[in-house]
Every structure is written in C-alpha cells, then in structure tokens.
C-alpha cells in the first residue's frame, strides 16, 4: 500500500472542497431552471479536481484569477459558499453585494482576484499580482486559471511572454475541457498542443489528467514549488471535461450523443478520488459518506438563505463606483 501524498485530514479537506463545488453546481443546475436566478451561469461541474488540486497548495496570501466558469476556483480558494450563493441570486448580502453576479465573484482577502467574464482577461492581471509577489520576496505565487478557449487570446500570449521576461511567479493553469464555448479544441487550437505552445515561450509546461485529483495535485505542486523558489513562471494543461454546457441552457448540439454520460462514468473526479482513497486504505468510505451528507446540508442552507435574502435597494446602483469622487 502506497503512503498517501496528503495527510488524512487534508485528504478529507480536498474531498470536501471538490464535493462542495460539485453539489453547488448540481444544485444551481436545478435552481436555474426555475427562473429565479438572474442572468446566465457557467457551471464548473466535472472540473473540480483542477481547482482543488491547484488551490490545495495555496494560502490566502497566494493569488488566483479566474474565468467566467469561476465558481469552482472561488470555492477552492476559500470564498464563503453562502456569500457566493447569495451573490449568484443577486442579493445585497452576496459576496459582491449583488453587483457582480456569477461571473464576477471575488474576495481579495482570500487572494481571489475575481472571476472574469472576458475570456483571456485574467492572465495579464495574474502577471501583475505575480510582480507584487516577486517584489515582496515572500515566496507567494499567482495562478491564472483559463480554458482551452482562452489560450487562443492574444492577452494570454502577452501575459505568458511577459511572465517569462520578468521571471515572476505566475502559473498558467489551462483547463482543457475540449470546447471553446461551442467550438471544439481540435478546430480552434491551431497547433493542437497547448502545453507545447506555452513551452515555446520559454517556460516549463506539464500535462495532467484533470479528472485525477492526485495527478493535478502532484503536477501543480512541482510547478508552484518551482515558482516559490524563484524559478519563474510555468504552465499546467489539465485535460478535463465539463458535465454541462458552455452556459446553462446551452443545448450542446455540438457534443456527441451520450458523450457526457460516458464522461460522467469515466472522468468523474469524485468517483476517481473515492475509488483511489478507499482502495489504498487512506480514507474509509464512511468518512466520505459523512462529508457528502454535510456538504448537501450546507448547500441546502446556502440556497435557502439566498432565496430568503433581500435584493439590494435601488440606492446601491450609484455606490462603489469610486472610493472618492
């Protein structure tokens, strides 16, 4: 029997985080259909092991920037789950007072510099946060999460090159879920090799199976350690799938029949995690079951709180534009 790469306590924590993300998204899928949630929402279900496998290496003083599909990154980085749910419902007590919504959740006190509705908008910001880390000399890092779609944006190339030139502790985590919105990666990524393209900027780049928490955790750990030791930027490409559409309501006609059904059987990071930790004897199934139960209760409570919460008053329209004006 192999020794576990994380303590039992941290294994439980990682599982709880992934399960929280999953149930958060599964529940949103149900609640969005009721029409009660404004706007449109991009679910992260299926990709949980990437956010958690990376963020389990970080603390509040490390930074991340996220994407339009950002709920998972927010939860993994420690954002308050009820505060997030309230935000998605557009409530005044939401994490961003109902002014941001699903695509703009942020909590700088947790080092979470924002989900971002502009594809490719985040990586330049991550380079800036990485400059801050470098200049402070505190061994902190800055992570730019992005998808295979974002990695065709010029901003991402600019950010990668600048990170290499300035030798800052930025790690670009590309979650290759196979689709740029509705367009397949085989069509949209000219070179077909995202990690290789990152490598050509002059940084190390690695690939991993994004449905395997342990693979992500190990690969991310090496690159994050490198950055903490002053070794500069790197890229991690995680191959993964999303269990839902680009946005909720997306009919997904571009996907093969039963594609998601098959992927839910073979690429479910929660199932994979459970199988591994129980087979290795690292955690008992009963421990995981207990976590499942607690998480469901927490999500129930968050949704109930969001449904009962007050919307922002109209007077909030004109606040928070400037600090002083």
């Amino acid at each position, binding site marked *: 029997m192999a020794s576990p790469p994380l303590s039992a306590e941290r294994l439980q924590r990682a599982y709880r985080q992934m399960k929280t993300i999953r149930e958060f998204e599964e529940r949103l899928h149900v609640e969005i259909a009721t029409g009660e949630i404004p706007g449109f929402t991009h679910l992260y279900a299926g990709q949980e092991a990437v956010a958690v496998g990376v963020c389990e290496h970080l603390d509040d003083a490390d*930074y991340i*920037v996220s994407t339009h599909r950002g709920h998972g990154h927010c939860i993994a980085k420690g954002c308050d789950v009820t505060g997030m749910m309230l935000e998605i419902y557009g409530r005044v007590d*939401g*994490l*961003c*007072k*109902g*002014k*941001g919504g699903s695509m*703009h959740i*942020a*909590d*700088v006190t947790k080092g979470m*510099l*924002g989900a*971002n509705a*502009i594809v490719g*908008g985040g*990586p*330049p*910001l*991550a*380079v*800036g*946060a*990485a*400059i*801050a*880390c*470098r*200049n402070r000399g505190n061994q902190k890092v*800055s992570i730019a999460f992005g998808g295979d779609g974002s990695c065709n944006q*010029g*901003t991402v190339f*600019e*950010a990668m*090159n*600048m990170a290499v*030139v*300035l030798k800052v502790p930025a790690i670009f985590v590309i979650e290759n879920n196979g689709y740029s919105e509705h367009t397949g990666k085989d069509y949209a990524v000219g070179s077909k090799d995202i990690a290789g393209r990152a490598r050509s900027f002059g940084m190390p780049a690695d690939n991993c199976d994004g449905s395997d928490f342990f693979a992500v955790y190990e690969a991310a750990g090496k690159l994050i350690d490198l950055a903490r030791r002053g070794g500069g930027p790197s890229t991690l490409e995680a191959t993964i799938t999303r269990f839902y559409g680009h946005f909720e309501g997306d009919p997904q006609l571009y996907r093969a029949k039963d594609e998601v059904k098959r992927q839910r059987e073979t690429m479910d990071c929660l199932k994979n995690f459970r199988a591994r930790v129980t087979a290795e004897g690292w955690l008992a199934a009963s421990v995981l079951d207990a976590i499942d139960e607690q998480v469901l209760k927490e999500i129930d409570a968050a949704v109930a709180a969001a449904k009962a919460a007050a919307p922002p008053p109209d007077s909030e329209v004109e*606040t*928070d*534009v*400037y*600090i*002083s*004006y």
Partner: protein
Amino acid sequence: MPQKSFRDALNEALHLEMERDASIIVLGEDVSGGAGGTSGQREASGGIFGVTKGLLPKFGADRVIDTPISESAIIGAAGGAALAGMRPVAELMFADFVGVSMDQIFNQMAKFRYMFGGKTRCPAVVRLAMGAGMNMGAQHSQSIYSLLTAVPGLKVVVPSNAYDAKGLLIQAIRDDDPVMFFEHKALYPRKGEVPDGAYTVPFGEANLLREGEHVTVVAIGRMVVFAEKAIDNLAKEGITCDLIDPRTTSPLDEETILESVSGTGRLVVVDESNPRCSVASDICGIVAQKGFRSLKAAPRMVTAPHTPVPFARELERAYVPSPARIEAVIREVAKE
C-alpha cells in the same frame, strides 16, 4: 521658485513618490530603455519622452520594469498589481495604444470596485502621451481623454502646465481609484514654476486662470495655453474672459464652470479631441441643462474636426484648434 519643464516636473513627482512608498512600481515600454540590452548603455532613454529618466539606477529593475511591447499585458499587470496591493504607474507610450489595451482599462480596472461590491481598490495610474502637433499621424496623435472620461470607474486627468502636472501626478499615485493621466506631448518642454518638494493638486477642482466679464472659456490640456493667448489678445479690444482649466475631466468641477457662466452668460469650450461625444460637448450639455437661464448666447465649442488626425504639416495645423480660431469664436460669442 525654480523653473522646470513639464517633463521634469513629472519626473520629479515619480522620484519623490517612489522614495516615499516602496509599493510604487513603474512599468512600460522602454521606461528605462536598454535594461535588457547586451551592449550599449543601461537606462538609455528613461522612456521615449524621458519622463522616467533616472528611476532605474535609483530604484532598480524590480520597481522600474521595462516590458515587451504588450500593451494589454502592461495595463493588465498594472491592474493586477494594484488589486494585489501595489501602486503601479504604467506608461502607455502613446495614448492611441489604448486601442490595444482597452479591455484591461475599461472592462477590468475601471470596473473592479463596482463588480466586487466595493470591497477592492485598484490604485493604478496609466500615463498616456497624447496630442497632435508633431506630425505623427492618425495613430500617434489623438486626444482621447474624451473616450475615457465616458467610462465610470476611471478618473481622468489632463494637466496644462508643469506645476499642475507634478501635483496632479502625485495626487494620482496616492489616489485609491484607477487614474488615466494624459500628458500632451507638446507640453513636455514647456517650463513653469515648480516647487522642489512634494505637493498635491486635488482632483475635481478647476483652476481659474483669468478673470473677466464677457465670456467663460473652458479649455483642456494644451488648449489652455492657446486659450490664454487668445484671451490676452481680446483683452486689448476690451473683451475679458474667465478662463477655466478643469484639470480633471472626471471628476469634473461643474460648479466652477456654472458659477462663471452665471456671471458671463456666455460659454466657449476649447478641446483638442474630436467634437462628437467630447468633453466639450459634455460641458456644453451640462451648462445647457443646469445653467440655461443665465445663458445670453448659445454655448460654442472649438474642437478638432470629426476626422482622424492628418499627417501633413499644413493639414495638421488646420486640424488643431489654433489661438486665432479660438480668438475668433470668443469674439463672435462676446458680440452676440
């Protein structure tokens, strides 16, 4: 008081502030110039206009950061560093390059505080060299402060003289909101009285440069210099004007403008940007709405035409509002 150029005043502001606060960084193309060269002189240029001269030897390459030609990444890095607690001063070599980096300016840094429910601050400064007069053509000569004045979340500064340039830049660096700082290229060598130490010029407080009875003239940036000439000529004919330099177009000191118009009843706004949706049309609109009863004549604008900036000397001269044109319009309005 010592005489210093607009350029040196800005340079002094950067030196003084960077000495005071280690969280201030400067980044942009060639801000030291030659930092990464294999031969030749380190700190070769201090920015193409020399505004960042002398910062690299004093503060080092971690704080004075030469970047690749990547305007989106420069502005984005400034925004991200500001979110992470730094006070970055990014240089966009030419204001026209806003076109390349617009997303990071108006979708990102301008909106962070609002989108994140007032829980973040983004104290970034973007310095932008602007303006026509050097035959640099349509993509290196624009006065696009009007474009950014329209964006909520940004503060927009357009200094007209060396004293204000220094005080406004220090204020911009200390300000907790993102600030777009426009420097007219033709003003860089112009000298004025500038104290040696640090001082601030507050945002949203216009400068009343001339006092008169007949016309209120509001002028922006370099146009203040041209308006002064026009107004001093008209004084010989007995036409006297208030001359107001708003100094910042966002926030805009509406009160000083409206108060002046309530006395003169006449308004001329001089603005080097294109006329449609410009600072000039904005000020005329504000006065029409809020000062209508005091108006004795229709508000007038003296702006560039609704065209790109032309190249040929003669064409560019015809494009930029001239002291003579400003003078003629003020005279017409005064006689209405």
